[in-house]
Every structure is written in C-alpha cells, then in structure tokens.
C-alpha cells in the first residue's frame, strides 16, 4: 500500500519520522543546499500545475519539491515560455493555473492600469478553465491588488508578496541573478516564496482543509512531565508560548483543538487551573483525551467526537515514536514538537490544509455545534419517534437557490473528505459559479438550525436540468448534520426545489465510491430502495420516487429567494 489518497501504509510510520527529521531544515533559516538534500522516499499525490510566467520560476520550483513532499504532494510543473503578454499556453492539461509575473517588465501598461490589465487577463484565463488560479505578481500596489480581489473572480487567488518583500528588505532582490537566471528575486526570496507556495497557497486551492489540531502536553506545550513535576514544576519557555499562541489563532480561525495526553484528567484540569500563564485555556479544547493507552486509539476517539476523519487532523507530539504510531494507525498528519516551540509553530502553519484563502461563517459555528452534539445524541436516544425528536429540537431548514454568497461554502463542502459526498466530484468555486450562470436553480444550499445551535450551511445539491431528466452531480452534507435523522427530509425538499415548477420525469444521481463516503451511498440506496453497484457511476430513476416522499411537519422550512 502507499501513503497517498487516504490509504494507510507500511511506510506511513517511516514518513512520520522523516517528516520530523526534515522539520528543522524546512522551517529553520532556509538553506538551499540543505533543502536540496530533502528527497522524498515515499509516494506523494501528484498535482499538475501550469505555470504562466515572464521571469524564471525554476529557482522557486526546485525548492518547492521538498516542501511539497513534506506534505505528501508532488507538483508536476508545466512551465510555459517567457511571456510578458500573459497569452496563456493551455496545450497541456493541468489542475491549477499559476501566474508568476514580474510586473516591472511590462512596457505597455500605463501607470495605475496594472490591476485593470491583470484582471482582464485573469478573466480571459477563467473563460478557458475552471481550474483554481493563483497569481503571484510583484510589484503589485495595494490598490491594484484590491481591484482584482474585489472583482470576486471565482477560485482566483492573488497572494500579497509585499509582506515577504518588506520582511527581507534589501535581501529581497539580487541583481546578480538577473543576467543568467532571468529573475531579479534573490535566493532567499525564492525560498520564502517556495515555502508559502508549496505549503499554503497551492494546497489551499486544491487540497481538502485540515479541521482540527490534536496536541500532546508533556514536552510539547511545556518542558517537563506533569505526573512527576506537578503543575508548578513544568516550564513554559518563549517557544512554548509561541506554539500556544499559534494554536489559539488557529482556534479563532475555526480549526478545532483537542488534547491527547498520557495523564490523568484531574491532573490536566489542575494544571490549567493553576498555570494562569498558559495562553491556552482548557476550555479552548473541544475534546480532551487523557488516558494511559496508546495515542492512536485516543486520536480515533477525537475524530469520532468531532465527526471528522483522522486524516483531517494534525497531531503534534514531542515523541517521534508516538508520531510514528499515530501516522501508521490513524492516517493523521504529524508534526514533531521540537526543542524550539516557535519552529514547531512554523511547521504547523505550513501543513497543507491549515492555510485557507478565506474562512466561512461556519468555521465560527463549528465548535459550539460540536459541544452540544452530546445533548442531541441524548435526545435521539430517548425520543419516541423521529417527529417528536425533530419537534423537540425545533429544527429549522433554510434553502438558498442560486445564491452567489454561498459559492465558497458549497465548494468547501464539496472539497472536504467527509462521509456524505455522493459523487466525490470535488467541485471548486469556479465550477459552482459556472453552474449558477447556466441556471440559478442548479445550486441549492441548505442551512440548518435548531434550539441548541446554528449549524450554518451544512448541505448542498448541485446539478443541472437535461431535458426531462434532473441530473444531480453532487450531494454533500456536513458530518455535523449527520445522525440527526434529517437526510431524507433535507434532501427531498432540496430535490423538489431543484426540479422547480415543472418537475422532470427522471432523476439521475452521479455516484462514486471513495474510501469514506459509504454513508452517502447507503443513504442513496435506502432512499431509492435499490442495491447500489460498487462500480456504478450513475443511478437513474423515475422522479416519482422523490414526489412520493413525505416531509416531516415537525421541521420548519424556509425558502430564500
């Protein structure tokens, strides 16, 4: 087996150890000679990137390889010829478009018109492809950059390189390089850009996001052993504080935190109560797993409680043996807590899937939603009927037809590795925006709320009307909304809205079998009352099957225009 695509492997343990060994090289002061020595001995997920450029990209791409491999990615660069006009050679296939552009080489664009010209070029590229576009353009004045970002071109991202330029100051450019390498960016600038590009900007355009960080205590959030040194004997250095703060920032941005520690729960509670100098508080952790058992089962329990796959969790521990065991057993992404906590924090934010181009409203709702999930489970167990349960919870569903404001959230749902993606089509923002242009009703978003919490947009149905057939290309429901006996009600209403006032005679669902989407497949089989073939790519039925379903009167339904 291999260590890609969600399969656990014999070399996952080896990968975790190598990953730990690479960390000081990749996240300390960058050194091209040392980074060049980081050569992956494990299999990585290939991602093909078409590069449209007007200056040398090779000093960046050669460094990207190590950072990408650390994230189990192998970028297959398709680098075009030098082109100041950005005419876009699109002969080769690609998954991501990268624009690598030194705007000072532009001769024919008037001052103050750079943003306008770039926007026109980006629109041109967008008309040919729905691939995510990442544009690295420097120099790019703030006002010009804002002009592009305000245009809200779907799945188009323009990172701001100026903070890196400011940080490196006189080390940002190296005129010596211009004559032979064709770029005026310095070695250090190329390495800093490579790190952000390979770990953050490109993965955020194409890789499912990380949803939680599980962190060890002893030797990770402080120096010392709690059970031996006690709360007052453990030491918190500046590096540990940096790691605490970084974890706090991630939590504020919607990534859930969990504690996985070999300690007694009362000792952990006493530690956080007495150490008021800890920036992190016990309440910041959505799940606390304090036990003397192996860490991989503890991490599995964290995943279960959070309703996510272990592969969407980053696990931080100072013990390479623990990292190795967890990587081999659960598939979680591992980060080694080294002696320097600040370096650990730097490594953490460069795990692919941590950086995201934007946060959704749902990111802020997730923690509260999960904290009340046990209350909901209790109600499910004790309710006499589904209707009584739904009425007791005061469930409200809101449907949004063709709403542009939900495109990013729907793309997020489609890209996640959750259990309820029927076709695993991984539609991005540009794919969804294109369907909206074709017919607004092609995209339906579903918002869920009950008396315990607001779950936000938790579901989406995307498809198209093809003659007398309603083709459903993707159905996604967030894991947080599963287990609430809502799937049939939620989706029946969405499908009827999708059909509109002239219902079709047929309905076809695109399906695909992935490593974790069995719940979605099981739902479809039960909903249509069929046996779903393993290899089936589509299932077609008479639309009467949807018409015949009843929707519970216990649910309040609202349809937004």
């Amino acid at each position: 087996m291999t260590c890609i695509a969600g399969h656990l492997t014999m070399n996952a343990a080896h990968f975790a150890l190598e990953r730990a060994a690479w960390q000081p090289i990749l996240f300390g002061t960058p050194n091209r000679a040392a980074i060049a020595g980081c050569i992956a001995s494990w299999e990585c997920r290939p991602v093909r990137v078409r590069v449209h450029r007007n200056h040398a990209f090779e000093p960046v791409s050669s460094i990207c390889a190590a950072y990408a491999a650390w994230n189990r990615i192998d970028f297959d660069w398709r680098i075009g010829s030098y082109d100041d006009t950005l005419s876009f050679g699109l002969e080769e296939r690609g998954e991501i478009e990268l624009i690598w552009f030194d705007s000072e080489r532009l001769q024919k664009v008037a001052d103050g018109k750079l943003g306008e010209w770039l926007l026109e070029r980006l629109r041109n590229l967008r008309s040919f492809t729905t691939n995510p576009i990442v544009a690295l353009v420097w120099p790019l004045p703030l006002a010009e950059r804002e002009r592009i970002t305000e245009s809200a071109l779907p799945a188009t991202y323009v990172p701001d390189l100026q903070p890196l330029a400011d940080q490196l100051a006189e080390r940002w450019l190296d005129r010596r390089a211009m004559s032979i390498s064709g770029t005026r960016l310095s070695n250090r600038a190329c390495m800093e850009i490579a790190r952000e590009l390979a770990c953050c900007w490109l993965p955020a355009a194409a890789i499912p996001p990380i949803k939680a960080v599980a962190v060890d205590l002893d030797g990770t959030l402080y120096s010392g052993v709690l059970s031996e040194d006690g709360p007052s004997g453990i030491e918190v250095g500046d590096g540990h504080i940096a790691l605490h703060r970084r974890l706090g920032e991630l939590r504020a941005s919607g990534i859930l935190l969990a504690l996985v520690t070999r300690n007694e729960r009362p000792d952990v509670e006493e530690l956080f109560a007495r150490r008021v100098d800890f920036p992190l508080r016990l309440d910041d952790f959505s799940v606390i797993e304090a036990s003397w058992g192996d860490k991989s089962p503890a991490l599995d329990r964290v995943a279960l409680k959070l309703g996510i796959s272990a592969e969407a969790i980053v696990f931080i521990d100072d013990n390479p043996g623990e990292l190795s065991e967890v990587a081999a057993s659960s598939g979680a992404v591992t980060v080694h807590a080294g002696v320097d906590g600040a370096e650990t924090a730097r490594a953490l934010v460069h795990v692919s899937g941590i950086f995201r181009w934007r946060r959704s409203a749902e990111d802020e709702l997730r923690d509260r939603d999960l904290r009340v999930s046990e209350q909901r489970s209790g109600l499910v167990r004790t309710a006499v009927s589904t209707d009584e349960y739904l009425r007791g919870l005061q469930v409200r569903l809101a449907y949004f037809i063709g709403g542009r404001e939900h495109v990013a959230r729907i793309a997020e749902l489609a890209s996640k590795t959750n259990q309820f993606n029927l076709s695993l089509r991984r539609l991005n923002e540009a794919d969804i925006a294109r369907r909206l242009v074709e017919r607004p009703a092609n995209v339906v978003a579903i918002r869920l709320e009950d008396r315990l919490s607001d779950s936000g947009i938790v579901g989406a149905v995307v498809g198209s009307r093809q003659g007398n057939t309603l083709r459903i290309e993707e159905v996604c429901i967030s894991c947080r909304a599963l287990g609430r006996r809502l799937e049939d009600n939620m989706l029946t209403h969405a499908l009827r809205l999708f059909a509109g006032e002239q219902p079709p005679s047929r309905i076809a669902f695109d399906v695909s079998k992935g490593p974790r989407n069995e719940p979605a497949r099981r739902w479809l089989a039960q909903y249509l009352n069929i046996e779903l073939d393993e290899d089936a790519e589509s299932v077609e039925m008479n639309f009467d099957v949807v018409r015949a379903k009843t929707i519970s009167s216990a649910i309040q339904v609202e349809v937004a225009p």
Partner: protein
Amino acid sequence: MTSGAESLEGEIRDLLAMILKLPPPPPADFVRGSVPQWDSLKHMEVIFALEDRYGVRFDESEFAALISPMAIAKALHNHLAA
C-alpha cells in the same frame, strides 16, 4: 592538491550532483559544458546553494569561472581564506 582541498572538491561534487540531479554515482570530475542539466538557470541555483552551504558570496564576475568541482573548490578556497 592537499587532502583538505580534495575533501572540499568531493563535497562540491556531491552538492552539484544533488542540485543537477545527476544519476549516482557522480563522475569523478566534470565541467559545465559536458553536463546538459547544467544550464544557466541551474548555474544560478548551483551558485546559490554554494553560497548557502559555505556562507560566502560570489561576485558576478566570478560566475563564469565556476564551471567544475575543481574550479569551484579553488574559488571557494580563496573566499574562505580571505
């Protein structure tokens, strides 16, 4: 040449092989013109890697002379001795 210089040349050969992605084992000696991978873009990467490894900074006027492990060792020796 002294054993120290030979050792430096060996280190440089290994570094060049890594940057240029030469199949192992790297040749005992080689010059830029005989290695197709060693084009102008790679030459800049080689220079950057050498500067990072040895903590030196080459002048642009030296670039053209850095064409083999032996030539690089000689240039480095001058920098490190200065």
